[in-house]
């Protein structure tokens, strides 16, 4: 039996004010910023004040985002919790590692070590909800979130699970950010650039959490149907066009049936050109971008999925996302993301 996979609840904490449920009615401008900071929700609405102080950004933001998604979907009983994260709990990792190096293996405390494991977020959510279900964490660069989505999609469509919480989460830490700036993967502080007409290399690091309740049940709250997801490390034996056309063909779609393509352009001069090849397949589709508003994090595809849900629900596209004149009706959205011409992912969504 093959069921369908619906998104019935969403929650997002990001550099924009996504945590109050609004949809870019007001936009925070990060032009020339060296880092995208999260627009902070009222954490204490969800977490006790003592815990808020102890928790890293990844855990805090994820508790808020997952609570929002679960409240919206009105579910309590989960068959799985699946997260994706690129850098994991890098703040606690860095704290423990600095302690270890700076004090030559002395005076270490266990807390940052305990909280440094990649599955801390998924484990904490399970602990808070006393949820004994399946609990996975994917850590595979920019394909971490698409991996979580694929796992959930397979379980829901095979009817192995009815309701699954999935999320994409990333945080950054100061030394790690400096290292990636040194490497040129992140733009140096005080780089002046225009995201949409960019002349500089590297991207700008960001943080955030986006969570979704997936279910095989179509409800009034349903945002969209997840039709398919696919990802590869490299496009060695094929180009991005073949990769995309083969994916659409497997789903019996032609490019002109896709109303919007949501591109993961991140302002890196060298690698944004990969999107141009992709875009050329969709001359009649709306071209949307989002990382100028949200920055780059390895789990940015989760942010893109959140935006798509909002587009379906409101049947409107905020001007701040569109590279051309926004459409009024949206039936299919295709999200394409890659990081440094690696970790290519496609996520196909349908209006219901």
């Amino acid at each position, binding site marked *: 039996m093959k069921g369908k996979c619906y998104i019935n609840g969403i929650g997002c904490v990001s550099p924009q004010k996504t945590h109050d449920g609004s949809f870019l009615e007001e936009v925070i401008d990060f032009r020339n910023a060296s880092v995208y900071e999260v627009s902070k929700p009222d954490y204490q609405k969800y977490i006790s004040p003592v815990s808020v102080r102890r928790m890293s950004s990844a855990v805090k933001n994820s508790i808020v985002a997952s609570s929002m998604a679960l409240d919206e979907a009105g579910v309590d009983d989960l068959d799985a919790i699946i997260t994706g994260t*690129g*850098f994991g709990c890098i703040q606690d990792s860095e704290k423990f590692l600095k302690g270890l190096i700076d004090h030559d293996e002395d005076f270490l405390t266990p807390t940052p070590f*305990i909280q440094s494991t990649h599955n801390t977020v998924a484990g*904490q959510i399970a602990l808070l909800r006393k949820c*004994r279900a399946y*609990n996975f964490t*994917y850590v595979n660069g920019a394909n971490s979130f698409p991996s979580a989505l694929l796992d959930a999609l397979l379980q829901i469509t095979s009817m192995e699970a009815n309701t699954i919480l999935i999320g994409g989460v990333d945080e950054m830490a100061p030394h790690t950010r400096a290292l990636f700036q040194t490497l040129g993967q992140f733009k140096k502080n005080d780089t002046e650039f225009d995201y949409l007409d960019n002349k500089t290399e590297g991207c700008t690091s960001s943080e955030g959490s986006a969570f979704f309740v997936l279910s095989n049940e179509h409800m009034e709250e349903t945002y969209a149907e997840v039709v398919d997801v696919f990802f590869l490390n*490299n496009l060695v034996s094929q180009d991005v066009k073949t990769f995309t056309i083969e994916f659409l063909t497997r789903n019996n779609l032609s490019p002109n049936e896709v109303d919007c393509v949501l591109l993961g352009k991140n302002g890196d001069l060298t690698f944004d050109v990969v999107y141009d090849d992709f875009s050329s397949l969709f001359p009649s589709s709306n071209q949307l971008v989002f990382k100028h508003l949200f920055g780059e994090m390895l789990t940015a595809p989760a942010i893109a999925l959140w935006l798509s849900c909002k587009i379906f629900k409101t049947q409107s596209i905020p001007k701040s996302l569109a590279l051309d004149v926004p459409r009024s009706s949206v039936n299919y959205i295709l999200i394409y993301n890659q990081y440094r011409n690696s970790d290519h992912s496609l996520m196909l969504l349908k209006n219901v």
Partner: protein
Amino acid sequence: MAKIAISGMGIVSSIGMNVEENFNSLVQKRHGISRLEHIESKLNNSIFVGEIKLSNKELEAQLGLDQAHNFSRTAMLGAIAAQQALKSAELTTEGDQLLGFVNSTSVGGMDMTERFFYEFLISDEYQRFIELQNTGVNSKNISDFLGICGISTTISTACSSAANAIILGARLIDSGRLERVLVGGTDALCKFTINGFNTLMILSDDLNAPFDNNRKGLNLGEGAAYLVLESEKSLQNRGKQAIAYLSGYANTNDAFHQTASSEAGDGAYLAMQKALKKAELTPTQIDYVNVHGTATPNNDLSEGRALIRIFGDCVPDFSSTKAFTGHTLAAAASIEAVFSILALQNQVIFPNLNFREKMIEFDLVPVTATQDAKLYHVLSNSFGFGGNCSSLIFSKHGE
């Protein structure tokens, strides 16, 4: 579910650099626990570890990596074991988009990050290792080295990671997304984890003694192991036979504490119960349990109680092989999957070393000598931080 065929395997650990060496060490009761040598740590003389006695240079040479490579030790160990697994399955990767890779690791590139953390900023000599903090790059190095071009991903759920990689692999085969998938895990020893476990005060200053009343904690280890999972259709087309089957699996969460296991082993109990259900087996059909058995006071008590809840008075023969290899974290479950398959292939149970005295809490005595046995179904447990609990059931070919 349809049973998933296993068509190949590879392993490196402190008791051997391939399947045969590991098997010989197991049956001859030769453990790989020693003092830490290749890392300079304040703990060198106070702890024991399951260390692979090959330097990074020797591993590089074995893989034929060029000078400019950016493999962590974790990735090098992984690449060696993964290469063996593909070879034993007689598979080539070129152009095979239905051959995927599900890796797992908890250490990732930490061994390199901790060496050059500040130096990275002042010298460009080692900067190519910076991006290993993006854990996925370590897996990508392995899959690029092997030329894998299908779906590739990485799981990190602490000490149960590799079991979960095996579970996802099974799902990818079951759903028809892949026909062949390399699954498993790899972790190298590093100061970060050694000190982390030390702050938790669960490292033994002696050889680890799973399920012993006087057990003092675990020895960390390093290693990697991979299985090739394959659809029946693919095996038939290639004219190959399975070496064993994955017949059941489950992952659950203890939802008790970030690092400790619940007293009654709730998560472990549920994982075993669900795996049995998936395999459509009754507890009495399990012939041997390769327990998680880390030799920490908490794990062995909790796991023992969960075993009794599942099996009642008839707990099958069981042993922990961590006294041989140490606890290899993300790699543990795939290393023990290889051991479980070796047990089925050779109809032998591997001994639980260093056991002297039964725990006072219950009447559980592990197998302590290499023992011939009729084995059809073997259960393997792996539990980790974040309450993560996984159970896998391996079955003999033809059962």
